[in-house]
């Protein structure tokens, strides 16, 4: 006979307090344990009498995946219970409620929307880096720590790249929550991290407009419509809605996963650099597509069984779509090095076609003294560097959405480069280094500091000393390990 949860129940050292939440598939209880001082909750699936497949498998999936996750964006797991007595998962208690209430108060001011979107995209990228695709992102499954980080809860539909997918054969109908489910999920795909990016786009749309992009379909026929019917553009619903934010939202909501952001980090990059977002027809549109266009899409989509092959796994998808940061020195004596850097980036782009290239140039400012950017000379320097960097970056022959430029300023160039890499989830830094002659040792130390402290791989491009006299086209490349 299985045990059922109730207030005061003692099991495996835990004592249950109040029931905090009763959902369709589980109840959540306040829990205490003599050994733990952290506030805890126990989630217990509501298993109907007899065999209740979907609930059980969903809970098995959570028991498999949740203990493997770490970091601030997931609740920490303390214990799991056996199905033979009472299945449960004990996690830390995240104070407060889900973000459902906040979403009900939408539309929010644009600044608030962007701030939340940045937090959600950051959390999502961290989750994807741990090989997990959530597949049921919705306001009720998001919480926020007091320190501000978004926390994902409920991994009952999730998929781990390296674990058996217990759900693969479980259901014959699409799994997910209708307002947020991606088209490929509707078409039974469970292995594309870009499905989460779609759901994220739908949530940002909702925060910004107070409406769900596809309403609240009551059945699968209603869900299917999103294969051909585009959502009402936010700019039609809200006066003075920024075109760049509409661009970001509608790109995340593209029907075909290959037209969306290819990683949460790339979406995050745009959310953090509005001025660099390339505005296309998506950002410009002020009304839904006309009936003729929708009809043409319907004819194309009505028999579609799926989109291109999904990525092999979450990590390889992210590796295909990295953010490359190129720190380049454009002073005349460094032209040869800048050229080698250019070649190095092109080689990487050849295998990582969805890579986004962020070019930066650092202006070293005096540690003490007037802020250079406030005087005319400083402004001129900034502008001329930006122009030069843009023209250098144009040599990559990339579309505007694949390349960005930024001028960083600070007394410690290496620290500026590292801070930029951290803030923008950069996967790989490429930079040049001069030879190691004694007069240049000082400048070379920028790259060595970056190699030592960067949170990602660093490739340092050098001109071999024998090549300075003549053109020998082999760059010496060193790969830095993680710091």
């Amino acid at each position: 006979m299985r045990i059922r949860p109730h207030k005061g129940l003692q099991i495996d050292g835990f004592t249950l307090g109040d029931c905090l939440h009763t959902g369709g598939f589980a109840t959540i209880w306040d829990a205490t344990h003599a050994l733990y001082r952290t506030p805890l909750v126990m989630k217990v699936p509501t298993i109907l009498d007899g065999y209740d497949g979907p609930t059980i498998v969903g809970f098995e999936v959570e028991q498999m995946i949740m203990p493997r996750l770490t970091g601030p964006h997931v609740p920490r797991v303390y214990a799991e219970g056996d199905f033979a007595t009472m299945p449960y998962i004990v996690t830390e208690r995240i104070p407060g409620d889900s973000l459902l209430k906040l979403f009900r108060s939408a539309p929010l001011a644009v600044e608030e929307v962007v701030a939340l979107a940045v937090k959600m995209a950051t959390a999502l990228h961290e989750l994807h880096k741990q090989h997990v695709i959530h597949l049921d992102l919705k306001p009720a499954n998001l919480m926020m720590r007091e320190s501000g980080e978004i926390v994902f809860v409920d991994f009952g539909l999730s998929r781990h790249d390296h674990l058996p997918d217990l759900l693969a054969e479980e259901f014959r109908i699409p799994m997910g929550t209708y307002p947020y489910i991606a088209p490929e999920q509707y078409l039974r795909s469970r292995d594309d991290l870009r499905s989460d990016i779609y759901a994220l786009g739908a949530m940002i749309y909702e925060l910004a407009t107070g409406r769900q992009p596809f309403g609240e379909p009551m059945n699968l026929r209603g869900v299917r419509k999103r294969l051909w019917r585009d959502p009402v553009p936010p700019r039609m619903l809200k006066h003075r809605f920024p075109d760049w934010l509409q661009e970001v939202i509608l790109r995340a909501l593209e029907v075909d996963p290959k037209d969306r952001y290819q990683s949460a980090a790339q979406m995050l990059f745009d959310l953090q650099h509005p001025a660099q977002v390339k505005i296309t027809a998506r950002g410009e549109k002020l009304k839904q597509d006309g009936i003729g266009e929708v009809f043409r899409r319907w004819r194309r989509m009505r028999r579609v069984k799926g989109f291109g092959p999904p990525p092999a796994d979450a990590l390889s998808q992210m590796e295909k779509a990295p953010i490359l940061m190129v720190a380049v020195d454009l002073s005349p004596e460094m032209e040869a090095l800048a050229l080698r850097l250019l070649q190095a980036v092109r080689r990487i782009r050849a295998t990582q076609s969805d890579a986004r290239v962020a070019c930066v140039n650092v202006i070293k400012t005096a540690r003490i003294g007037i802020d250079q950017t406030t005087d005319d000379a400083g402004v001129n320097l900034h502008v001329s560097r930006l122009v030069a960097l843009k023209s250098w970056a144009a040599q990559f022959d990339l579309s505007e959405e694949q390349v960005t430029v930024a001028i960083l300023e600070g007394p410690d160039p290496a620290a500026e480069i590292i801070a930029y890499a951290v803030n923008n989830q950069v996967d790989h830094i490429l930079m040049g280094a001069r030879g190691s002659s004694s007069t240049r040792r000082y400048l070379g130390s920028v790259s060595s500091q970056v190699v030592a402290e960067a949170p990602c791989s660093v490739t340092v491009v050098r001109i071999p000393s024998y090549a300075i006299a003549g053109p020998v086209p082999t760059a010496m490349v060193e790969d830095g390990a993680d710091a």
Partner: protein
Amino acid sequence: MARYALLTDIHANREAFEAVLGDLARRGTDRIVILGDIVGYGPDPGWCVDRVRVLAAEGAVIVMGNHDAAIERVENSMNAIARTAIEWTRAQLDPAQGAFLAGLPYSVAEDDLIFVHASADSPKDWIYVTSERSAWPSFAATKARAIFCGHVHVPAIYSCDLSSRVQSQRITAGMPVPLIRSRRWLAVVGSVGQPRDGVAEAAYAIYDTTTNELTFRRVPYDRAATSAKVRAAGLPETLALRLLRGS
């Protein structure tokens, strides 16, 4: 609480066996289980049997495979190549080595685990577990939470859920699979000495009872050396090629 190293189908391949023993020593395991077929096909039966006898004396669990059984009793079910190799092997082994193989148990149960060479429902019939359908009798025949077998030479894992439905699960070498307790599990461990899944590396698995995770592992070994020995011994050429291709 233990970390089990699960080895099977060594098939007299000394280089692969040594490579696996080296790998599991580096990864820290405290109990070795050998799921049968120590000999057959490969060129070093005597050395492999002696090494297994030492491991057995140190506490390893050893069960019998069909090739081990065939040393003493002629097995009619074997194909011509396997029979040729068994006849050659029989001549290589001394009586003590043969007696060791003949005395091995067909299956061993330890806690809630079962170790067996082939299908657990009738170990002496050497039935291959290659599908959900052929995995079912093993689950039906025992109450064990996890069954470990070999014989197939292709690693695989099956789960049996609360409604007794058997499902094959995808595995990734090197990535731990939690054997969640709401299901029972059957793992077919890949072959140390004659892999047949297209990967020409020795296969084995580690089961950690503390974390309750099973990890399928692959270890490269000097397969050119082993296949040269196969040829030098005059064993069928197919057996040498098989090691080089891993299929």
